[in-house]
């Protein structure tokens, strides 16, 4: 046990060191930018994983929340507000939207939850797409400048990467704490045994509601990172495909694990940006990868690989946690 612990600590130190020095060993600005994208999508996927992995609630409307935060930032900046105000308002709007999502969708679980979040996501997309006077429709909203807190200009790719990295690491730490907290444990309880939790005196709805707010906060954070990264926001960001994409990151990587969504985000972003430069049929490849994951590693890449590793090192593998939706 002790050796696995120290192995894990060692791995974490290596990973953080590798990420912190990435601009030094990664060849060129382009790859630094890809890394920034992976990190910001990892934050998004971690946010969705709070619901999908730990609460057993699958949302197909998270791109709507992501986009709302991004639009709020862009819109505030367009109105002439500063970056601080814009970011704060965007966080507020993101969490408030999630609260509305939660109040509406938590009436149901399973497919009902999927469908309600999907409808909400489509409504937000439809507004972004057609409410031209507010959003500019397909023309989108431009964010001409990235902020420069304390003179540290984020226009520079490396500086932006480090900022994203700090946010990402913070989110990972907060997630780790959350998972181990009583609320995290209770949330997993509501996923696996909602009735028993109820009988034990837990307020299942409230626990899920808090989880939603937490998920919404992380989603808003990633939405703000996104809008500063691309310096542009348009309705496509809110489309059903985007919701599907982030859900795929979570499921492919391994829902209910800390590392899974990060790996999933890395996989999707790398196929979309880097591999698409080499293989014209990258969409097909991405689809095939998802199908293959379901067939070969139904729990996702991270749990699947862990199990393979344990098999290979001849240790008894504990049964991987079930991550299905509530009954």
């Amino acid at each position, binding site marked *: 046990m002790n050796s696995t612990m120290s192995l894990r600590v060692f791995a974490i130190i290596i990973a953080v060191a590798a990420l912190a020095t990435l601009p030094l060993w990664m060849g*060129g*600005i*382009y*790859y630094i*930018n890809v890394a920034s*994208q992976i990190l910001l999508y990892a934050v998004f996927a971690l946010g969705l994983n709070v619901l999908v992995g730990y609460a057993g609630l699958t949302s197909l409307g998270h791109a709507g929340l992501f986009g709302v935060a991004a639009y709020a930032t862009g819109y505030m900046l367009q109105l002439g507000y500063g970056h601080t105000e814009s970011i704060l308002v965007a966080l507020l709007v993101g969490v408030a939207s999630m609260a509305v999502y939660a109040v509406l969708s938590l009436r149901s679980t399973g497919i009902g939850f999927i469908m309600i979040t999907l409808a909400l996501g489509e409504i937000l997309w439809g507004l972004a*797409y*057609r409410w*031209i006077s507010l959003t500019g*429709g*397909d*023309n*989108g909203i*431009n964010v*001409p400048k990235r902020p420069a807190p304390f003179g540290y200009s984020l*226009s520079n*790719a490396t500086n932006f990467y480090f900022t994203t990295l700090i946010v990402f690491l913070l989110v990972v730490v907060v997630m780790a704490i959350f998972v181990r907290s009583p609320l995290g444990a209770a949330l997993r309880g509501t996923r696996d045994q909602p009735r028993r939790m109820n009988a034990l005196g837990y307020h299942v709805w409230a626990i899920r509601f808090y989880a939603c707010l937490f998920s919404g906060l992380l989603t808003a954070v990633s939405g703000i990172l996104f809008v500063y990264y*691309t*310096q*542009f926001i*348009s309705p*496509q*960001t809110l489309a059903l495909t985007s919701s599907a994409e982030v859900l795929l990151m979570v499921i492919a990587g391994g829902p209910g694990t800390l590392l899974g969504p990060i790996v999933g985000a890395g996989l999707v972003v790398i196929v*979309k*940006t880097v591999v*698409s*430069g*080499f*293989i*014209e049929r990258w*969409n097909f490849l991405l689809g095939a990868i998802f199908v293959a994951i379901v067939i070969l590693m139904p729990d996702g890449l991270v749990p699947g690989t862990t199990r393979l590793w344990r098999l290979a090192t001849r240790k008894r593998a504990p049964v991987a946690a079930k991550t299905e939706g509530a009954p």
Partner: protein
Amino acid sequence: MSRKLSRRKFMAGTAAGAALATFKFPTPALAQAAPFKLGLLTVKTGPLAQGGIQMEQGVVTYLKEKNYTFAGRKVEFISADTGGNPAGTKTKAQELIEREKVDAILGPLAAFELLAVTDYITEQKTPMLSLAGAEDMTQRRPNPYFLRPSATSAQAMHPMADFAAKELKLKRIVTISEDFAFGHEQMGGFQQTFEEAGGKIVNKIWPPLVTPDYTPFVAQIGDCDGVCQGFAGSNPLRFLKTYAAAGLKYPVVTGETGGDDALLRSFGDEALGMYSSCPYTLDLDTDGNKRFVAAMQKDYGVDPGFYAAGLYVAAQTVAAGLEKSNGKSDDKDAFIKALRSVELKDTPRGAIKYDHFGNVVGDFFIRHLEKANGKYVNKTVKTYHNISQFWTYDEKKFLAAPVYSRNYPPMKS
């Protein structure tokens, strides 16, 4: 070199067929200067894919003609698919500039893609030659690294409106176009010139870019004697079908995308009689155009349209600019200056030059869609010569007015 031979470049080479061999193994004589890297941002998926695929074909046709050599430098061509999505355009522009270190970018296709990368290319000082509308890129907020070898959104619409009012004698027109910058600007330009010539716009209808069934919009057309449509991609096709299915018979006029020659093989009888104004026409009787059309037909079995011709001219401009700067592209400011001073005599669209904003000045063709020998053809009926983005207007006054938009010029009651 092995990393540089990425799969897609290989594919672009394959598309170029015979050119592949020379492309893969530069001869020592030519290897003296570093290769010139030419990037393309295009769309190969979604409703705009039709034009996007032609864009790539247009560039490759010219590259083959020049044997992948501009001003004695080998040309390395890198094509990237933006997916017709602004965020994707940004990512792909970064790939071209930061990873591939391209010397110039052709594309992107759509105005909303262009708007997403304009600040970025200024920052990076990379010359960009795009067909996309977005008027202000060469007007009120000019981008010094930008050239438009095709036309602003409204550039073809000014002559179309002139023709509609003076020759077709139309008085009351309904405009219908996609609800994004390109549509707004096209229709704004049409309205401006048409109303000055004594006509009236009676209604403006804006369906979204993605519209499975146009009936709800077509049903609003009425009380007019003509329709001006400004659809892009594959949408003109579906609009005209619905228009005919609604039994409407008003004459239809359109711009470069709405009556594109490349769409002719997909059109049906419903398109007959439509007038379009375009900076390129398939039937232009010049050597430059014949060579271009023959090459496109031979390699791809298709008639080229506005997108292919536009990118061919863009590539021609890059070649001529590089010639002018003696093959040097490292000094971006000098290179863009050379590009903007290019004047071409023999392009598929005739002679062109660039104004001081980097926008093209050239001929515009009014064509009538007819059937000849069982094929649909756009027959040129009138040519407007040397048309700039300012039409006949005074540049200062034009720039003092707001940019054409959904609400400008305003509707007259």
